[in-house]
């Protein structure tokens, strides 16, 4: 009886969007965003594009399983899974589940990398930061985060008035503090640690678009450590609010006993 044992060659083959990761990032950008260029720009970069297509086709032939879509779509899929998806923590709260702006940001960053030579990752992060700082998106994120479960684990005996007071403070904190975009984004990143798991392969790890704290800090004009500490203190602040809620309640009980 014949046993279907995969050969070594077969086991090394990966999905096409992973095999594309072996290309240079500029080539991947060319493959993904060439259609977005204007005709004049396409004419300028036609030779680069053809070379990138040749490289990409060779990579697919050597390392990938059988593709069922053209190379540009595979490159865009690569960006989706290594640039858009890892930033899902950001996309969720700030974009209300709509990943369209992130996908657009990736393609625009790839386009700018071709045209102006700016590193695609820097341009992509700048676009992410632009979205994060948008007041409407920020309000959207605040609406998500005020529903964060640990913020609403009230003691069972807490009075409605005390809960309202606490929620009012959290409301004010989330909606009005100037530094909240940074903290919310950092929080969002930290809340989604799983996105790091898919980016550990050698071919991908230097080419992913993950927006990390150390990338976010320059946009704030600060060191990453300060951002981390601020987030830590923000959480402590929430804890302090909760503690105050408890204290007021306990004080009321104590005073009631004393007056009686």
């Amino acid at each position, binding site marked *: 009886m014949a046993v279907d044992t995969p050969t070594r060659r077969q086991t090394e083959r990966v*999905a096409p969007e992973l095999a594309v990761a072996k290309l240079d990032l500029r080539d991947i950008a060319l493959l993904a965003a060439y259609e977005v260029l204007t005709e004049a720009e396409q004419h300028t970069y036609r030779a680069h594009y053809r070379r990138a297509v040749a490289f990409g086709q060779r990579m697919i032939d050597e390392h990938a399983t059988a593709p069922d879509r053209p190379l540009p779509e595979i490159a865009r899929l690569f960006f989706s899974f290594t640039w858009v998806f890892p930033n899902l923590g950001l996309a969720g709260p700030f974009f209300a589940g709509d990943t369209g702006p992130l996908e657009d940001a990736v393609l625009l960053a790839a386009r700018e990398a071709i045209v102006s030579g700016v590193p695609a990752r820097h341009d992509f992060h700048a676009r992410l930061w632009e979205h994060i700082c948008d007041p409407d998106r920020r309000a959207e994120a605040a609406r998500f985060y005020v529903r964060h479960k640990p913020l609403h684990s009230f003691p069972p005996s807490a009075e409605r008035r005390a809960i309202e007071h606490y929620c009012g403070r959290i409301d004010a904190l989330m909606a009005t503090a100037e530094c909240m975009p940074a903290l919310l984004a950092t929080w969002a990143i930290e809340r989604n640690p799983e996105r790091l798991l898919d980016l550990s392969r050698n071919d991908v790890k230097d080419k992913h678009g993950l927006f990390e704290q150390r990338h976010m800090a320059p946009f704030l004009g600060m060191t990453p450590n300060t951002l981390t500490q601020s987030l830590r203190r923000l959480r402590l602040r929430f804890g302090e609010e909760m503690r105050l809620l408890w204290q007021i309640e306990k004080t009321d009980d104590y005073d009631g006993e004393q007056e009686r």
Partner: protein
Amino acid sequence: MDLPHATSARRDGTETAESIGDQSDDPVPDARAWRRQADPRLDGRDVARLQAAAGQSRERIAQRVAAAGLVPDAEGAARIPELDAQRDLDAALEVDVDTLQRIDGLHARRMRSASPRERQHATTVLAEALHRIVDGYQVGDPPPSRLLRCLRSVDDRVRRAYGRLTVFDDQSPVAAWWEPLSRWVLLALATAGAALLAGGYVVVAAVLIGTRVTLAAVTAPPAPSASTWRRLIGYNPDWASSVCSHAADALILAGLAAGLHAGGRLSWAALTMAAALFGLLATVSRIAAREQGLRLPRLWIERAAKDVALTGAVVAAAITAGHGLGSASPVTLVAPAVVGAAGIVELTRTAYYARRRRRLLSRAAASGDTGDLVPNAIVVTTGDAIVVNLRRSGRRPGIFPERRGGGGPYLRMVRADDDEG
């Protein structure tokens, strides 16, 4: 790596934005649902939209990249500060939250809470809010005119310069030696001068009082140091200096009054003594107003006028009168007159700012009912005592939904260990 294969990575058209994530509890949408949404195809409309977006956003994004210092060779690239104290996020949080803390709510808790501890806590928080210095605009209270601001600026500069009129450096060893000693030496000089005035030795007294004024102005220590033992015993050098200074002024006037009484000028003596007591009372009332939240520093012009008037009166008495103050000229009465006028100014100032603060606070509290004016911040300036800023504000949309989980207009309780609540 858990990536979907090419055949399954199609948008099926049934996914909606709401179904992507669990909107009710978890802010982060479901990753697997999002993966199914990935569609790498581009049509003509997508290309046109992206080209238009690229043209619109290019300059803005380039500025952001340059400002972040990610393009080192670009002009205007900002260097990331090593100590980014200017972007203190914690301070921003503190200011924002405490600014938005409703002052009238605190007043209500302070006044009407059944819990003494909560009343005490609210009083503490309110006091902190009252003393917090916040830069803000003043809508409810129009800002002072340019002329008034200019005068205030000049006044502030003169006050600082007068306070710093000293021959000592900060690091001078003489200053370190003289600082703890100075206030007691000056008080001793004033006491000796007062005693000599009472005894009729006017010339010597004038020399001592002149020496005191000169020493106080020229050898003023730059800043009293708060050493460990001073903190331990609760000794405040500023407070001691203030008491010594005002007590010395009162003592000199009392000595003058005693000398006038000994010289047979009973009415002058009574007037001088009354001025001494009145000046002391006015000063104490100003200082005590601090306990009510009014910060009224000593006016430089009051200090200068008292110094000049007291010294001038005693010197004039020394010139016109040989032995005793019986034959002193009426110029001697300048001292009690100036001290009395300064006392009236101090009392008026204290009363004015207390009344003003009461009016502003009541307006802030009343505005909470209408919702039109809300207290924004309370600005404390040293020159103006206390000012409440009011701002007009439209109603912000609430962050919390009106109704959640069918639990009525309030939040439902969620246990930490229970996912479903």
